[in-house]
């Protein structure tokens, strides 16, 4: 096998204290960038690009790739510990990770997250090494109709995000979708619903909205219900999940890693959509779907493995076609050019050692991440133990930094606060907030591709292309299946009574 010899050569290049040190510092920076809300993996990579200029190309790239590999995991830490997703894709980790923390089991959640993330990351890397060429070809066949169908499929996840009242979940999704239409119309340049505010021309920035809905909304709610929380507070345990516990959910982890990697390959879909879909599918196959949203270990594992799996996936189109599969890989392309390398298939011809060096460094980076993840968990648990009256103002101040650093603008922080109030109002009335995010992520994908498909052809295009048709049928099923199931349950219950 040619690939194996190349890979061994790649590993050979990395033996030595210098490259190892670079991988370790990349991973640590990645976790830091991930932990800080507002600093996305893409921004982390971009900030390191000028630093990397002084390094030889291989070392520069393994530094950046190591950062990118670990950043998505870093995001899940704050999501679990303080309900503040550090990266957009980590929102899904809040669904079950934070309830577990509230139950006094942050160690289990954080441990599951690092194990699942490591597995997903390694899985994605292996797929990247062995199957990138056929996968990249498949990704190219994604046209507007397919993207639209994917967005619709994503929107149907709403019905499984509903814990209880699904009408409220749909209302929340539609709030997100409508908020998403604020800003410049991508096709005609017309400013919709901006009311003359210039900062709204590009719509709401996603990260401040996210921080507001989750972190701020949670804090405001917590303060309102302060006494109850204090009474119900359980002892916080740093216990990690047992191996047998993880082994029980191996199918979830594997399935989520596959989904994360595959969705990561599709340019423009990305880690966040991957995490949502993996979560939805994990709930569908689970024996205990009723635990999802209330602290399910499977939910945490699904999110972690999918987000990290998407990293390897996103590198597929970068290395085989020279096109970015995510925001962070777009920055990596810039870094490659800066070092005089041409992204795309020519890399394999002219610079095979670099490519395989990157592959090998990813495998090492995930192991390093696993090590530091386990080590760091005790630190995060200490932070969770800090009294809420100290922690909450600090989280608000971190939310400030996170929203501000997205565009270096105070306006974004105001957006964050406004979304915080929205999140609070919704939560205290039992509207779920996750669907709002779903609407914000998918609204744009749905609208632009719907209209683009209709510019290219007529409406039959959605039903004549096989991938699009299959996705639409799946959406239909996935939309009504949970609703039907819950209806049947209630009917059965009433009959029993």
């Amino acid at each position, binding site marked *: 096998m040619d690939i194996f010899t190349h890979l061994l050569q790649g590993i050979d290049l990395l033996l030595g204290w210098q490259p190892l040190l670079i991988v370790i510092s990349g991973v640590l920076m990645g976790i830091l960038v991930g932990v*800080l809300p507002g600093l996305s993996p*893409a*921004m982390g*990579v971009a*900030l390191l*690009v*000028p630093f990397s*200029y002084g390094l030889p190309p291989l070392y520069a790239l393994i530094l950046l790739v190591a950062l990118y590999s670990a950043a998505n995991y870093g995001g899940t830490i704050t999501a679990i510990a303080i309900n503040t997703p550090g990266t957009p894709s980590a929102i899904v980790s809040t669904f079950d990770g934070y309830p577990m923390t509230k139950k006094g089991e942050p160690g289990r959640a954080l441990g599951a997250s690092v194990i699942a993330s490591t597995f997903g990351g390694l899985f994605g890397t292996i797929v990247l090494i062995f199957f990138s060429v056929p996968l990249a070809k498949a990704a190219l066949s994604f046209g507007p109709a397919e993207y639209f169908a994917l967005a619709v499929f994503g929107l149907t996840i709403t019905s499984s995000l509903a814990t209880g009242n699904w009408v*409220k979940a749909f*209302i929340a999704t539609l709030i997100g*979708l*409508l908020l998403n*239409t604020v800003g410049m119309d*991508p*096709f*005609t*340049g*017309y400013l919709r619903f901006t009311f003359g505010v*210039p900062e709204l*021309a590009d719509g709401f920035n996603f990260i401040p909205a996210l921080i507001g809905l989750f972190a*701020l909304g949670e804090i*405001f709610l917590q*303060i*309102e219900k*302060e006494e*109850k929380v204090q009474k119900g507070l359980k002892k916080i345990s740093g216990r990690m999940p047992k191996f047998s516990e993880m082994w029980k959910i191996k199918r979830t982890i594997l399935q989520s890693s596959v989904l994360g990697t595959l969705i990561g390959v599709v340019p*423009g879909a990305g880690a966040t959509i991957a995490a949502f879909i993996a979560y939805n599918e994990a709930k569908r196959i689970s024996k205990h779907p009723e635990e999802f949203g209330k602290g399910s270990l499977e939910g945490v594992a699904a999110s972690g493995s999918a987000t990290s799996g998407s990293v390897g996936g996103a590198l597929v*189109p970068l290395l085989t076609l*020279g*096109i970015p599969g995510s*925001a962070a890989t777009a*920055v990596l392309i*810039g870094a490659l*050019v*800066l070092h*005089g390398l041409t*992204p795309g*298939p020519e890399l394999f011809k002219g610079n095979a050692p670099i490519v395989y060096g990157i592959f090998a460094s990813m495998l090492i980076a995930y192991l390093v991440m696993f090590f530091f993840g386990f080590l760091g968990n005790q630190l995060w648990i200490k932070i969770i133990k800090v*009294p*809420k009256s*100290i922690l*909450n*103002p*600090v989280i*608000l101040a971190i939310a400030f*930094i996170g929203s*501000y*650093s997205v*565009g*270096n*603008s*105070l306006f974004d922080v105001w957006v964050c606060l406004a979304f*915080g*109030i929205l999140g*609070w109002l919704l939560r*205290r009335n*039992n509207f779920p907030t996750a669907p709002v995010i779903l609407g914000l992520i998918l609204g744009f994908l749905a609208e632009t591709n719907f209209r683009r498909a*209709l*510019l*290219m052809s007529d409406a039959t295009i959605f039903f004549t292309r096989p991938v699009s048709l299959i996705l639409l049928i799946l959406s239909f099923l996935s939309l009504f299946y949970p609703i039907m199931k819950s209806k049947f349950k209630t009917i059965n219950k009433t009959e029993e009574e």
Partner: protein
Amino acid sequence: MRFIFLAIISLFLLKGNTFAGYPEKPITIVVHSKPGSGIDIASRLISNIAKKYSDATIIVENKPGGSGTVAMRTVLGMRADGYTILAVTKSFISTMLLANTGIGINNFDWLALMISDPECLIVNNTTKIRTLEDIIKDAKQKNGEQKWLGPLVGGLDNLFAEEVWEKLNIKAHWIPYESGSDAIVALMGKQGAVYVGNPGDISGRPTLSIAVVAAEKRLEKFPDVPTFVEKGYDIKSEVLWRGFALKKGTPPKIKKYLTDLFAKIAKDSIWINFVNNSSAVPVFYDEEAFSKIVAKDQEKARYYLQKAGLLKPRKAEKDKYAKKFLVVLFFLFLISFLVLRKVKPAALSQDTVIAMVLFFLSVYVFYLSAGFPSGKLAGSVGPATIPQLWAVILALFTLWLIVKNFINAEAKNSNQEKNKVWKATALIILMAAYLVIMPFLGYYISTAVFLIAGMLMLNYKNYLVISLTVLGFLISSYYVIQLVLQVPLPAGRLFN
């Protein structure tokens, strides 16, 4: 503790209060795109190279938004003292013409043009359309249905396409994508015939090739690619330029300093290599030459924007009724609220009120959308369709919830906890106050005030722990956020 506070404060005072020759404080390059974009990397590289030729410190600051409007506004909001430089690209001309912000080319001194990137037509060489002749033949066959891919409508690639269509006497559809690279992916997936871009777009993508380039003579790197002129069409040279500009009225002495600096950087081998690697051409035009190019390009852009029907005033006519309609809706809301309270007060839970507000908002959204102009390129689905669709569905769901709550009203418990609402509200107000004082007091002082007030408000009384936490937070935000991650935290007007 006080020492470090004073140290931090004096750090800012130092910045503003020394008077010496230019540059005596860091120079900021404002970039209109996110970190990692082409112009961002170019600017960061320049800040690195500049260290060789001067003792000026150059920082790059990203101000994305509004196709460059936010960045332009940022620079125009500063003093014309040469400490804020705007990284510019040709796309700014379209933005200035289209965005109705009142910002024009005369607001800037166009300091230096550094990168010139010729426009070209790119095709997928695994399809039958590979040359300029193929494109023309296919376009005539498809009779206006040929698809051209590229970024935003009204952007410079779109305008160049308009020019090509006019000069070649063909018709085609412009299919807009969110970014150039999305459109390239679509071309690789054979979803259109032509992509309008630059030579760098094909590098590393063997299935793509350049059909024709808009340059005076063939490019060194692509000797087999013909020019429009060779093929007998009057499209001489069309480039995407990138460079740097200052706010109008910057003192000549400072401009000379920066011009000299950029001229030296333009000749630096690292810079030349970088530009060549991205298949563009490293050039240097000083203010006089650059300004002429900008003026000429603006005239051309105006002509083709008009031709594409994009320069008409596009303000919605219904706008003047929008406010009245909102008032009407508000009264309808009040009436329905009062009616409901009279008929069945138990049904008026907070749920129902939220649903009612959302219902009337969706009616308002529907009404506002109806006033959106459909635009020439909108085709069957204009900017109004999707918001209206969401609004209708939202209205239906909220109605459903209202009706459901109305029917099930008895089953609901009445209000449970009202006790701590004020506390959450107070924290929201505190956070708002934090944001209000930030521009005046700067990040460090207002954060300290906010953290202390917040902790006291939440009944934490251990002053030692409070002060240590606040101090630790400020120090780590200075080192991690401001120094390592280079986020320019607000400095505060008081000290500037």
